[in-house]
C-alpha cells in the first residue's frame, strides 16, 4: 500500500512538473516570437497540454484521496479543447482583418493580407512613413 502511494506521488509530481514546464514554454513563445501570427501558436497549443497535465495530476490526486474516481476535471479539459481553437481562430481572423504586419520570412501571400498599393512587412513598415500625411 505504501509502495502504491509512493508511486502515485511520483506520477502526480511528474505530471505537475511537466504541465508547468509546458505552460512556461508557451508563455516564452508569446514573448519570443516575431509577429502576431507566430505568437498565437504558443498559447493555443502548448497551454492546452500544460493545463491537461495539471488536470491529470489533479484527477490522480483526488481519486487517491477520496478513494474513488474523481472525473470532474475532465469537464475542464473538454471545455478547454473546445474553446482554445475557437478563440485562436477568432484572434487570427481579426489580425488578418487589421492586416497586422507579418514576419518577412513568412511564405505565402494570402489575399486577406495584400495591401492595395504595396505590402507591409515588419522591416518595411518603419521606413514606409513617407506615405503618412
Amino acid at each position, binding site marked *: 500500500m505504501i509502495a502504491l502511494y509512493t508511486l502515485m506521488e511520483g506520477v502526480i509530481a511528474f505530471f505537475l512538473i511537466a504541465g508547468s514546464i*509546458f505552460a512556461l514554454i508557451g508563455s*516564452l513563445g508569446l514573448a*519570443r516570437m516575431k509577429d502576431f501570427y507566430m505568437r498565437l501558436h504558443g498559447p493555443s497549443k502548448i497551454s492546452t497540454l500544460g493545463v491537461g497535465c495539471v488536470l491529470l495530476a489533479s484527477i490522480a490526486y483526488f481519486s487517491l484521496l477520496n478513494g474513488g474516481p474523481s472525473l470532474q476535471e475532465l469537464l475542464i479539459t473538454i471545455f478547454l479543447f473546445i474553446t482554445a*481553437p475557437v478563440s485562436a481562430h477568432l484572434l*487570427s*481572423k481579426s489580425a488578418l482583418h487589421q492586416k497586422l504586419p507579418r514576419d518577412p520570412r513568412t511564405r505565402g501571400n*494570402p489575399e486577406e493580407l495584400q495591401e492595395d498599393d504595396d505590402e507591409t512587412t515588419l522591416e518595411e513598415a518603419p521606413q514606409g512613413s513617407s506615405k503618412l500625411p
Partner: protein
Amino acid sequence: MIRPRKWLPMPLLSVLLLIVWLLLMNGVALGHWLLGGFLAIVIPLITKPFWEAQPRIKKPWLMVRYFFRVLLDIVVANLEASKVILDPLGRARPAFVEYPLELQENFAITMLASTITLTPGTVSAHLRMDGTTLLIHVLDVDDIGDMKRHIHERYERPLKEIFEC
C-alpha cells in the same frame, strides 16, 4: 444509435448533457440520474428552435479512433512547437497556406479547423466566405505540398468518412 423522437429531438445532445451533469455533481446517486435525465430531456426541447440541423454521425467508432489520434498528435505538436520556441537562433520558417476544403458540412469543417489548430505547428486563421478555402498559418514548415497532403490523409479523410459517406 438512438433514433430521434418527438420528445427526444437530439439524442446525442441529451446524452452529453446527462454526462456533463453527472460529472459536475461528481457522483452517480439516483437523485443525480433523475435530475440529470430531466434536464437532458427538457433542455433540448426548449432550445430546439435555436439549433441548426446537425449532420448525422454515420460511424461512431471511427470518431473514437479519430479522437485518440488527435490526442496523440497534440502531444507530438507540443513537443515540436516547444522545439521551435526554444531554438536559440529562431530558425522558424513560417508560412501562410491556403488549404482547399473537401468537406461541406459546417460542423465537420469546424472539427477540422479545431484539429488543425491543436496539432503540429498549424493554426487555422481564416475560412473564406465561400467555405471552400481554409487559410492556415504554419509555424515551421519545409514542404508546403507535403503538409497539405498530411492534413488531407490524416484528418480530412477520416472526418469525411465519419460524417458524409
